[in-house]
């Protein structure tokens, strides 16, 4: 039983990180239909930014978070302006172009910083574990779970409670008509892309104490995050959250029954079947077009 709870907790911890990555991706995909394969590289940039801030300025991860968010959001904003903007009418081509961007970012980091793995210390306040019965939970992982719930709430509030969110939802539903109402869709798109990239940066900062920071770390993350988005349903924030928890827990349970690799294979199999039968995701938006 304890094994099960420990496994469920580690699943939740994985889900929380997936959620933060997938949220950014879900917003970008939902609003502009861009499949951003460079998203994993945004996560990687976030991780390296955290490492740099800690290494050169001695910032703890918690202090670094806002700076990382802004830095990666800026990178995303520039990329949207220079490249992605030209491809809105060709959704399949965005897969290719963003993969190219991913290669570029990866190589720039490899050339500039080096290919070896970098180490980032977890924040000292969050050292130690919380033990309930025989279930051991590291404080940092608990923090990551709570933080991701915070990010989810903030994103949800941004989408539904602010003027920007209202404009964004209008553009998602119908770009042409919202432009007729004076909403600058181009500007909304840039900001959304930047926000999504910033979230990926935060995810990158959060995972630095848990994963090794290497230039190729984004590639595996982006595939998982993408599956979360597709399963959650186009641009659905709640759907992404549900799908992240589901994927995290399903992987954890399968991994317990079989082994880690087979658990992941089983999870991917489930996802393929799920997409086949619900291609619009678990929580499809019901918009008449």
């Amino acid at each position: 039983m304890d094994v099960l709870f420990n496994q469920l907790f580690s699943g939740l911890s994985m889900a929380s990180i997936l959620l933060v990555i997938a949220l950014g991706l879900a917003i970008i995909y939902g609003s502009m239909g861009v499949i951003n394969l460079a998203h994993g590289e945004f996560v990687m940039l976030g991780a390296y930014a955290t490492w740099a801030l800690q290494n050169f300025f001695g910032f703890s991860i918690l202090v670094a978070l806002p700076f990382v968010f802004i830095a990666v959001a800026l990178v995303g904003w520039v990329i949207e302006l220079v490249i992605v903007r030209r491809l809105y009418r060709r959704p399949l081509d965005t897969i290719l172009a963003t993969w190219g961007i991913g290669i570029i970012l990866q190589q720039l980091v490899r050339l500039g910083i080096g290919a070896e793995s970098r180490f980032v210390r977890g924040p000292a306040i969050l050292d130690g574990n919380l033990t309930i019965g025989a279930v051991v939970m590291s404080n940092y992982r608990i923090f990551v779970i709570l933080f991701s719930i915070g990010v989810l709430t903030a994103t949800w509030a941004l989408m539904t409670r602010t003027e920007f969110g209202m404009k964004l939802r209008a553009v998602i539903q119908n770009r042409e008509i919202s432009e007729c109402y004076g909403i600058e869709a181009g500007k909304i798109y840039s900001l959304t892309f930047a926000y999504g990239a910033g979230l990926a940066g935060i995810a990158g900062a959060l995972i630095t104490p848990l994963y090794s920071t290497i230039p190729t770390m984004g590639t595996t993350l982006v595939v998982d995050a993408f599956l979360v988005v597709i399963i959650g349903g186009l641009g659905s924030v709640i759907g992404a959250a549900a799908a992240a928890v589901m994927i995290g827990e399903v992987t954890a349970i399968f991994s317990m029954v079989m082994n880690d690799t087979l658990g992941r294979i089983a999870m991917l199999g489930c996802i393929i079947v799920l997409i086949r039968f619900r291609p619009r995701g678990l929580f499809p938006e019901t918009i008449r077009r």
Partner: protein
Amino acid sequence: MTRKLSYDLLAFAAFMLVIFLVVPTVYDYDGFELNTFARYLSLAIVALALSLSWGSAGLLNLGQAATFGIGSYAMAMHLKLRASDGLPDFMAWNNVETLPWIWVPFHSLGFTILAGLLVPAAVGGIIATFMFRARIAGVFVAVITLAFLVAFQLLVIDQQGMTGGQNGLTGLAQLNLFGWEVDTYSTAFYYLVAGCLMIALAVGLYVSHSKFGLILRAIREDAERTRFFGYNVASFETMIFCISAALAGWAGMLYVLVLEFASPTYMSVSFSLAIVIWVAVGGRESVIAAAIGAILVNALEGRLSDVFVEGWNLMLGVTFVLVVIFMPRGLFGLVTSMIKMATERVRIRSHRPHAIKPIKANSQSEGRR
């Protein structure tokens, strides 16, 4: 014979001339250089296979590397069995006592070649039936095939006793083709691979110029409307997936012959997307252009990665982004639009005297009024 077909046949003949005569002459029949070029040629086959599904039918298959990998492992299994008497060495390291049943028939070369073509085709067919029966299209095809690829690669790495895991299959024997011990650094081997590429290209050209190819293009433009015309869209899409997968398997078999080992990296996401890059650079609409794209990018990689060891991947990324933005139809699109401009100019020049006269007459008559 339509004009498009005659252009394609012309390009095919020119391409054949270059591959069969010019390239060996330029490399002075040097075994090492020809072996390197044979590698590009085998990759050209997998690129043209992708262009059949992506270019003709608009189905972006990001799992092409999986079928390529199956083909390569089939050939590697045969060569591994030839290299070892009894149990292959890696199996003994993994405490596998008897040869797994799946390995047994690979003693026969005929079975191996059939398996290298038919197993990928069957796998492609199963995935395609699974997807296209549900009318999955566009981005979702890309995502499902990508997820399949990741799962498949993990499976191959996980089954270490059967597949050699992360190391793949190494220490392979030479192929013995009807008594001919194939030396991969010989001119004859180069011609074998080049011949295979030409046959694959001919198959690709036949498919794209047949009625079947026309229906595929109709599906790409508007699947719903094609369905209304009474065509079973799912079965056409499944068929092209099978053909494309079989060609990819073929390419995989040749690739193993050239490199003399099989590795799970042949089934990695980055390799699969690299295939997409080659096709995009060459031009996805034409099988010949896709093949040329693969040869070009790989040959450039071979030359430039020696000079710019670190910077090469960066250059590849930049080139690719530029191609997607400014040349969405690849080199093929560039060439066809240039030909179109040239013929347009010729047409205008030959028509000019007739075209000007009536305008003059009109303006005079208007002036009089």
